[in-house]
Structure formats: C-alpha cells, structure tokens
C-alpha cells in the first residue's frame, strides 16, 4: 500500500514536468496565422448556453478558413479553452492563450461579465483588445477611457432604455408610462445590477414606479420573490437573469398567471434554452436581442455547405439557427471584419493585438458589406469610433410563440441622451479611480 503511494507521487511529478515541457514546445511552432483565442464554457452549470455560442464561433471561423482561405488569404488559427464560466479559470485561459500564435492573441471574447471585469485592466497592459459583445462593463462604451475594450453592438444600459421605449410603444406613447408600475427581477450580482441606474433615471423622467426584486445566485429558489411579485402585480416585468434563474422565473411567472407578453427578459434570458423547459406555456414571453434569429441568412447556408458538407440536420444538432448560435456567428463576424479592417491599414499578414484594436475602433459595417457577407438582418450596420465603442446600441424585442422566437418589433433606439452621459460619467469615475489617461478622440487617426 505504502509503496503504491510513493509510486503515484513519482508518476505525478514526471507527468507534471512532461506537460510543462511539451506545452512550451508547442507555442513556438505557430507560423504566419492570425490567432483568435476562444474562451468557451462547454461544461459546468451554464453549459447549455455556452455550447451553442462556442459552436457558432467555431463554425464561422471554420467557414472562413474553408471558403475563403482565412481573412484576405491569411489563415485563422483558433484554440478553445474551457472556463466553465468560472472567473479563475477564465484568467488561467487568458494567460495561457494570450501569447500563442505568430503575434499573440488578437482579440479576446471573455464571454462572462466576471471574466470581463478581470481582463479589462490586464488587456490594456498586454495590449490585446477585448470584445465584450453585449456584456461586461457598460462604461467601456466610452472609448476615450477604455481604449482596449469594445462592447458593441449594444450595452445593458441601452437595452434597459430600449425596453422602456418598447413598453412605451405598447402602452401607446411614453407619456402613458406615468403612474405605471414596472418591476425588475434581477440576478443579485454586478451583472444583474447593471440596469438599475438607467431604469431609475428613466423612472424620474417618465413617472413610472420601479420596484426591484433581487434573486440570489444561482436562482433555483425564487418562490418568495414571486410571492411578492404576485402581491405587487407590476404592470410590466423586466428580467435580468442568467442560466437556471431564467427557466425558474419563467415557470414561476406562469404559475402566478402573470401576463407573459408583459414579461421581458434581457438578451441573456432570451434563448431557446430558457423557454423550452416551460414550452408552450411560456408563449408570449418577450426578450431583447441584437442578432437575427432563425436560419434565413445566406451566411448560415454557407456554414451548412462548407462546414457540414450540406448536412442541415448535423448543423441543427450543433445549434445552427438558434439565438445563441447566431450570436456566436455574429460575434465572430464582427471580430473578423475588424481584422479585415486592420489589414486594410497594416497589410494582409498576421497582425498583433495592437493592430486589431485599430481595426475594431475603425470598424464600419455598411448595409452593402453585410449583404456581401450574407448577414443582412443578422446584425445591424455598425460604425465604431474612438469615442463610441458601443455603436448604435439598438436592439429589438423578440417573442416566443411556444415553438420558436420571432422578431416582433423594429430595431429600438435607446435613449442616447440619457444613457450616454451616464456612460461618460461612469468612465470618468473609473479613469480617476485607476489613474488612467483620457484620450482626446479628436486627435486619433
């Protein structure tokens, strides 16, 4: 017995040494390729949401490599790293992947608000841009402070504002919001607290009453909260939830017979995974979104053809056409177009993170370009600038008909006059707290 113990210890040490050695060897072997790290979560409690996004990422990059031979002829290398939606593992993945490839990682998509908060200061020092697409720190929309972080196409604050606009539209005008009662049920974490300041400011302007209902992580137990909602009966209910919290909340809403078409989820509470457990009973439930739903896009046809060899069934198994898969495709489309933009300036070769940051900041996706990419309607035309890292900030509201999501509103304009000053104030505070310089955007080329 004792001898086996020692033996095991020996084997373990040897394995550890071997792993360290081989890993170092591999990093040196990469040639002239663009390296995009993919921090995914295919395991752990949030895997149902993480898998379709990761598949969308992977498939779009595969498509570019298979159909076009990469971006402008430069092959894309990518590597997945499993984070389990855990901040500590996310940091480990970041450290592991940041120096891979010919010139290091060109852009990180942390895919978790927690990991984003970790990486925002680090990425600035390492000169690798972050694209926190619709999550992370809202203040990063102000590019004069957050030079290395981009959160287009929209932020949580824009989304909250767009929800109020939607509610106003349904109620027959923003003036009718006066005296209405809006509830916010949120994940009690930095992520869930994001919309509160925006909703509070808008409630002062438009006269609705706001009540907040925090739900503690992970949100499996919400009966007390819903008892309170049942008592208060808010006219509208907005949800800032994530993972299992969404499914439970939707079921609870059905249980108290809350009118589902007055219940709006954040874009992380608006995927098939969130409503399917409740199925047809969730009919009418609404959610925000910033990427097109369904399979009716030329780019998705290309993925089926080039990545799955025309096998639609196999592609659908991997999530093609679902909300989160399409979001993954949209995400990589943005990033690769930014790389293409950067190549316009620096040439068609492997780029560094610094060069791709320029590409992200000067990204301009026109209607015509989206048409070429076969992504009309998948994302909105977007223009990023030094001052504005959020883009247009427009979203739409989709509704669950019991079987699938469909877009029920036009793209909604957030209240830029309300959101933007708040973004700038928050960015200013952040800059002061952390002693960061503020760029003068009129000087940037």
């Amino acid at each position, binding site marked *: 017995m004792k001898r086996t113990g020692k033996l095991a210890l020996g084997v373990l040490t040897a394995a550890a040494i071997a792993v360290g050695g081989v890993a170092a060897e591999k990093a040196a072997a990469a040639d002239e390729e663009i390296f995009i790290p993919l921090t995914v979560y295919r395991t752990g409690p949030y895997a149902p949401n993480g898998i379709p996004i990761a598949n969308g990422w992977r498939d779009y990059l595969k498509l570019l490599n298979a159909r076009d031979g990469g971006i402008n002829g430069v092959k894309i290398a990518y590597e997945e790293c499993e984070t389990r939606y855990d901040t*500590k593992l996310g940091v480990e993945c970041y450290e*592991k992947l940041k120096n891979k490839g010919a010139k290091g990682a060109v852009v990180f998509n942390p895919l978790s608000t927690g990991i984003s908060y970790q990486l925002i200061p680090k990425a600035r020092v390492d000169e690798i841009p972050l694209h926190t697409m619709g999550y992370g720190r809202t203040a990063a929309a102000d590019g004069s402070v957050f030079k290395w972080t981009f959160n287009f196409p929209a932020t949580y604050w824009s989304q909250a504002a767009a929800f109020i606009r939607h509610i106003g539209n349904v109620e027959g005008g923003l003036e009718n919001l006066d005296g209405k009662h809006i509830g916010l049920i949120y994940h009690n974490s930095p992520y869930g*607290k994001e919309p509160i300041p925006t909703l509070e400011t808008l409630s002062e302007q438009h006269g609705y009453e706001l009540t907040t209902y925090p739900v503690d992580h992970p949100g499996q137990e919400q009966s007390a909260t819903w008892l309170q909602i049942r008592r208060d009966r808010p006219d509208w209910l907005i949800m800032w939830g994530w993972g299992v919290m969404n499914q439970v909340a939707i079921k609870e809403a059905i249980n108290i017979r809350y009118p589902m078409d007055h219940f709006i989820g954040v874009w992380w509470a608006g995927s098939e995974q969130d409503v399917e457990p409740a199925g047809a009973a969730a009919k009418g439930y609404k959610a925000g979104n910033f990427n097109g739903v369904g399979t009716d896009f030329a780019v998705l046809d290309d993925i089926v053809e080039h990545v799955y060899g025309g096998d639609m069934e196999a592609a659908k198994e991997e999530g093609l056409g679902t909300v989160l898969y399409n979001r993954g495709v949209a995400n990589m489309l943005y990033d690769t177009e930014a790389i293409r933009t950067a190549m316009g300036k620096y040439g068609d070769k492997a780029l560094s993170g610094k060069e791709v940051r320029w590409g992200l900041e000067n990204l301009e996706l026109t209607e015509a370009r989206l048409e070429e990419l076969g992504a009309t309607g998948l994302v909105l035309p977007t223009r990023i600038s030094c001052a504005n890292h959020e883009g247009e900030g427009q979203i739409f509201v989709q509704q669950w008909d019991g079987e699938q999501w469909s877009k029920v509103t036009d793209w909604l304009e957030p209240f830029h006059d309300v959101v933007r000053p708040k973004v700038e104030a928050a960015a200013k505070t952040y800059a002061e707290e952390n002693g960061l310089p503020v760029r003068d955007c009129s000087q940037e080329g």
Partner: protein
Amino acid sequence: MLYREAGQFKTTYGADQAIFPIPQDRWVVYAVIALAFVAVPSVANEYWLQAILIPALVFTLAAIGLNLLTGYCGQLSLGTGGFMACGAYATYKLSTAFPEMNILIVFLLSGIPAAAVGCLFGIPSLRIKGFYLAVATLAAQFFLVWLFNRVEWFYNYNPSGTITAPPRTMGGFMVTGPEATAEARYLVALGFVALFALLAKNLMRGRVGRAWMAIRDMDIAAEIIGIRPLTTKLAAFAVSSYVCGVAGALYFAIYLGSVETAAFDISVSFLVLFMVIIGGLGSILGSILGAFFITVVPILLTNVPEALGLPIGVALAKQLENIVFGAMIVFFLIVEPHGLARLWQIAKEKLRRWPFPY
C-alpha cells in the same frame, strides 16, 4: 543514506528545540526557500506565475489559516470564504480610504476585521461541536457574502458592485493593479506565505498551540488541566480568521485584481477545507501540499491531452480532468487518510532507516 543522523550531537537546548532539528531537513527547507524566492521568478513565465503559482500560494495561506482552526484546535469551519471576503473588502476600503498607506500595512490590517468577525462567529463553538459547529460557521459564510453584496458602502457605492484593487507600490515596485508584474506579485504572495507559515509553526510549538491541541484531543480533559475553553477557542478562531483574512486580501489584490462577492461563495470554503483534509490536518506542510495539489493538479490535467496531441475537445478534456482528479483524491485518501503530509513523513522515516526500512 540521506538521513544519516549518526554523529550529529546537539549541545544546547536551543538546537534541540529548533523547528528542523535534523540538519538535512534544514538544508532542504533553505534550498526550497531559495529556489522559490530566487530561481522560480527568474525562470517561470507569466502563465506559470499568474495562473498557477500565485493562486496556489494564496490558497496555501488560506489553508494554513483553516488548518490552525480545524487541524490544530479541532473546530470544523465552513466560513473560510466569508472570512476571506472580510479581508478582501477591508483591503479595498482601507486602500481607497487611505491611498498613501503602504499596501503591506493594509494587508496586515485587513486581517483584523476578519479576526473580529471570526471571534463573533466562533462563540457558538463553546456550546456545539463537530458537524453542528460546521453548520453554525456556514451561517458566517452566507451572512458575510450577503452583507458585502447588500451594503453598498463596502464597494464605495459603485453601480456594478465589483471591487477593484487600486495600483499600489511597495518599495518602489508596483505590487497591485494591472501594471504590477507577475514576478512582483508572486514575491509578495510568497513572502506572506513564508512569514505566516513560520509564525504558525512557532505558534503551534508553544503554549498556545499546545492548548489548542489539548482542546482538540479532549476538551473536557483540557478544561480540567486548566485550559480555559472560552479564550482558547476564541483565540483559535481569531488567529485562523486573521490568516484567512490576509489570504482573502491577497486573493483580491494580488491574484484576481477585481472581485465580486461570488468569488467568495461556499465553494471557496469547501475548497480550502478539502485542501486541509487532503494535505493533512494539523500540519503546516500539509496545508502547503494540499493547496498545491488542489490548485495545480487540475490545471496540469487539463493540459495533458493537448500536450500529448490527443485530438479531444476542451469539454471532454475538462470532464476527464474531473474524473481523474476525483479518482486521485479518493486514491490518496485510501492510501493515506492522514493526508499528503503524513505520506511525506512516512517516506522520511523510511529514508532514515534506508537501506533497511521496515
């Protein structure tokens, strides 16, 4: 062979009472310390320092803290995450309120609120023991995390509720904040671990430690020979929580840089408890081994399939890691229920009797 003690004579009481009475042991420890302080930072790359060694060191400190309480004093605690959170939030409040205060002093002061809270939640230990005490300390875990999430003063009223370590220097070197190099942060963490390991070791060899162990082994007997359970148990809670608080401060300021309360949830408490159990209850070496085992081995296992060139996806690799790691924990506990430290002790005994071990 390595442990031939023949001819080694001790001529003073001091030599006989040294922490490492055998010179060979002493040399090994000196060598390890020199290696850790000099060789590692000059050889290891940023990935090793930032992703592997710094978290391992921070958890070592937390494990030492919990081991003082659970391993030496016999009080089972599940509040480690909460006490660490106390240290982290104290660091944030102190360093933002007094920006000119040396960060080293901030870290040392941060343990004090944690110690106070630990004392408070240690009071039930006078009445209840074992699993029941674990449940009582669980209350600390949930209450503290809730408190830091709920009361906005703790995170200076910022809308996101995340605390970020401000950039601070120590002796001219940046040690917190994003500009701090991994080497500087590693050395600070290592310094704290070395300091507290030495203090803990000495504390345990003295009157205080013996009193704690007496309480652990049989509290009624300890009371009869004149050890006051009230002060002894509360002192154990205070010292343990202090060390855990400093570990929390390092976890926040040195390792992660910015945290939210979710970083201190119940899983952290369990993790530290597992480190102590696997490493060895009542052993400082055990705390170090346990913390390194639990933080480093999973990372190595994740990298095994990739290093071997096996074409399996990251998800499968992660599941395999869980399976293998779980099996390893079971294996080590079967081979030696008293932890990795005991395994090392047995190996040492054998080496002393080599080539005729029995």
